[in-house]
């Protein structure tokens, strides 16, 4: 894990400080004078040597103190803390409700394997996947908010009670967006189990198909399903960038797009490292969990 972390920091650092041209020049804009660029360079610590700057970056990560944003001069750790609440209140309900719904549908599809039920599910999922997520956002916002007025078009209330009314529509959109990929992946996982020997044995001893599914297939499929879910957990943090940007939700995604537009390097760098860390932690968790629930797997 440590070598990967070094890799991530190195990659991020090189991307922005070496390949990206002079950060100070970028930040100052096209019309800045030479003196202005010099001042900015000194102010942001860009006049030091590259190894020095890299070590400083690593120190920031180790102490979880990412400094201040170039654009808003806010502390980046505060920005992330503020954004996290908004993002999670958007993603958590959509993520978990989608999992339950999609596993149910996938079970139905596998139940009707070889029939139109299964084929229809697969083709519908592929069709859902063939439309850009932007179109879902635009169309659903138009239909459910602008045209019919069921939900507010966009907006935000910082209080926990007041924000829900603005979140229903983004939830629906996130839910719809997750249908295609989720059903397909759970269907594949469950389908793998159906052809296993123990399922055939269960049927051979005269067990009803319902019981086979409930007692054997689903139970055993839960192992890979849990792994899939854990690996997808980082989605809770990075999965709603477009929707936050669209609905003006002040979460991490909205902050990130703003940072990209403002050439706000420290913020982008902090986000990259944090999301990579999240990804690594959940992958590790998936491995550990896998060996706990499946005794055949040994951690190497």
């Amino acid at each position: 894990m440590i070598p990967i972390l070094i890799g991530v920091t190195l990659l991020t650092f090189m991307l922005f400080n070496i390949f990206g041209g002079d950060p100070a020049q970028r930040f100052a804009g096209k019309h800045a004078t030479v003196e202005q660029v010099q001042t900015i360079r000194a102010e942001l610590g860009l006049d030091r040597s590259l190894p020095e700057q890299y070590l400083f970056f690593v120190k920031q990560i180790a102490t979880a103190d990412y400094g201040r944003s170039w654009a808003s001069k806010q502390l980046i750790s505060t920005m992330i803390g503020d954004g996290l609440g908004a993002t999670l209140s958007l993603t958590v309900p959509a993520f978990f409700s989608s999992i339950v719904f999609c596993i149910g549908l996938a079970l139905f599809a596998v139940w009707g394997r070889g029939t139109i039920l299964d084929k229809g599910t697969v083709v519908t999922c592929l069709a859902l996947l063939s439309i850009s997520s932007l179109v879902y956002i635009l169309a659903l916002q138009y239909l459910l908010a602008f045209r019919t007025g069921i939900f507010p078009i966009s907006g935000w209330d910082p209080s926990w009670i007041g924000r829900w009314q603005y979140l229903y529509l983004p939830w629906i959109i996130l839910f719809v967006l997750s249908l295609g990929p989720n059903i397909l992946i759970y269907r594949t996982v469950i389908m793998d189990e159906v052809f296993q020997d123990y399922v055939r044995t269960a049927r051979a001893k005269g067990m009803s198909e319902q019981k086979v599914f409930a007692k054997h297939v689903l139970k055993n499929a839960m192992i890979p399903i849990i792994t899939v879910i854990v690996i997808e957990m980082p989605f809770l943090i990075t999965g709603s960038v477009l929707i936050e940007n669209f609905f003006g939700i002040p979460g991490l995604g909205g902050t990130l797009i703003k940072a990209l537009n403002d050439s706000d390097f420290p913020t982008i760098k902090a986000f990259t490292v944090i999301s990579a860390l999240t990804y690594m932690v959940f992958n590790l968790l998936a491995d550990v969990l896998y060996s706990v629930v499946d005794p055949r797997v040994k951690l190497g």
Partner: protein
Amino acid sequence: MPTASSSSADVSTSIVAETEQSDRHQRRARNSLWWDAFFRFKRNKVGVISFFVIMLYIAVGILAAVGVLYPNAQVPNQVEAYTSMSWAHPFGSDIFGRDILGRAVHGITTAISIGLLASTLSLVIGLVLGAVSGYFGGKVDGFVVWLYTTVDSIPYILLIPSLTFVLGRGLINVFIAVGLTSWVTTARLVRGEFLKHKNRDYVMAAHAIGAGNNRKIFGHILPNVAHLAFVQFGLGFVAAIKIEVILSYLGLGVDPSQPSWGLMIDDAKNEIARPYWGNLTAATLFMFGLILSFNLFNDALREALDPKMKNK
């Protein structure tokens, strides 16, 4: 597998028939995995139809690129701004009076070239790195695994915008950014296959008659794992087109002077409340047709190439 090859030979006679060439096809069908896969693919109607739809898209894309179809799609015509549907403009015209159908047709060229270039780039990187690390093992393997785990740890929604942000916008930079970041799955799969194959008998036999590393990697093992590459290429193609649309929407994609479905959807953002649906409908329909055909084609291809599917 006598039954499988004889049945595909039957299919070949009934379809190709007559000419002398069909004899050659038959003979090859008996002993080639690829012909076997081809005949299995041919029996899948959905796969064949989607293949022809993709070809149609490519043909239209080429015709648009050489200027036969809608040569004036990018020329503004302020007199005709926001006209509604008509025979001259089936999807109406946009804010600058440009024909939306023409823009969508030119969007095919952009989408296909990005899909093609980005997935070729990622395929080459993935194949080479996966092959080298799986074959040589040791330190090389360690390095490649470290490299792809690192790249994989950074979510693409961050990595690709950062990369295009650093490279600047434009068609070429989008495909470089997408290609440089999407090779991980290919590399991982190819590495796994090479680990399995490198100690098999046929590679040992090649070694025994004096084949070098290059010959063993490219001449012997690669053809046996190439089916993975085909499927990955298709998946990468679809992913690249979808990413381009989102990048263009975020203002990090192709240049605004280029026709692109993402830019059309971005325009539509301010138009659907008027309500003016031309841009959104055209871009969505064109994209839907291409991506859905590609998804179905990939599915059929995977089924045809996967020997395990034969008995199911």
